[in-house]
């Protein structure tokens, strides 16, 4: 499912060069974070707390502008998909240990009415485990996302409908999933968003028309499977 603009061998050589240059971000990628794993998440984040600091937006801008990495290595907890249990289960743990989470949200998921969110999730590759919210919403709400953002957590765009974008995807779909997603996310959040991640973590160069829209929409950073790319 992971697609690359060059061969895996060429990509491996590029990544090795990048690592040898002495810089890499450490991420922990989460998706749904069910309450049944609360103790597991707590043990993992607690173990990281002694070793790592948070990556703030300011630190990201500095490092990506050529600045030195902070003396204490940074850890980026990434919360993909916009599930409600990210707020209810993982966020309090991150806050207990002083980490800032990065929420990568398919903007429209939040706007789907609660009784249809499970259908939306099933049709848009939004996978979760145990369903702790029977009869209620499974997506984050806008107040929850705004509250997290106000507390210093980061919000990024993960398309509008969690749609994979291919080189032959029609222009109107690309526009909705990139430009429309940014507008919807910024309207709901009440703040600007400058970071994007394609579904399946595609990197820059795989889909030139989509990449051009990222630039046009004003995105500055692209998270992908293996790279964090500064676009502009």
């Amino acid at each position: 499912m992971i697609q690359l603009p060059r061969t895996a061998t060429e990509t491996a050589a590029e990544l090795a060069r990048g690592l040898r240059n002495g810089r890499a971000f450490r991420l922990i990628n989460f998706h749904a974070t069910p309450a049944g794993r609360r103790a597991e998440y707590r043990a993992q984040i607690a173990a990281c707390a002694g070793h790592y600091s948070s990556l703030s937006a300011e630190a990201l801008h500095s490092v990506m502008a050529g600045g030195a990495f902070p003396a204490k290595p940074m850890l980026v907890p990434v919360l993909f998909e916009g599930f409600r249990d990210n707020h209810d289960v993982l966020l309090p743990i991150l806050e207990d240990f002083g980490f800032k989470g990065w929420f990568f949200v398919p903007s429209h998921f939040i706007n789907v009415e609660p009784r249809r969110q499970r259908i939306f999730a099933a049709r848009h590759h939004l996978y979760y485990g145990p369903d702790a919210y029977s009869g209620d919403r499974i997506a984050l709400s806008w107040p929850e996302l705004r509250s997290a953002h106000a507390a210093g957590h980061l919000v990024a765009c993960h398309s509008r409908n969690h749609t994979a974008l291919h080189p032959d995807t029609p222009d109107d779909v690309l526009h909705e999933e990139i430009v429309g997603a940014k507008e919807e996310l910024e309207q709901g959040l009440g703040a600007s968003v400058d970071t994007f991640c394609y579904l399946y973590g595609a990197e820059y160069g795989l889909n030139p028309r989509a990449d051009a829209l990222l630039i046009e929409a004003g995105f500055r950073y692209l998270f992908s499977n293996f790279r964090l790319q500064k676009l502009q």
Partner: protein
Amino acid sequence: MLIDDAYLDQFETDMVRLSRRAYAEVGVPMYLVPEDLTGTNPAPPPDPAFQALAQEFEAVTAALAARNGPLSSTDLAQVLEVLADRNFLDVPFSSLSDGPAQ
């Protein structure tokens, strides 16, 4: 860095084990390499902490290609996941996991 058969066997065993995690609900450590596509920023100062990681990544990917044929993108992801699992903490990150989906 020397990669012998025993090392590579254990590495591939870890690749398989970690690939069977419940990705939808567990935390997965990973490395991301920064890349400036604008070409406007100065070269970053080196960080010795990542030299060993780069060496191991190169050695493992070369050994995997020699053993199994051309690398796939999934191979790259799994190699980085194993390295991250082993190196983020003093113990493997996955050792702090409850295991399969509940």
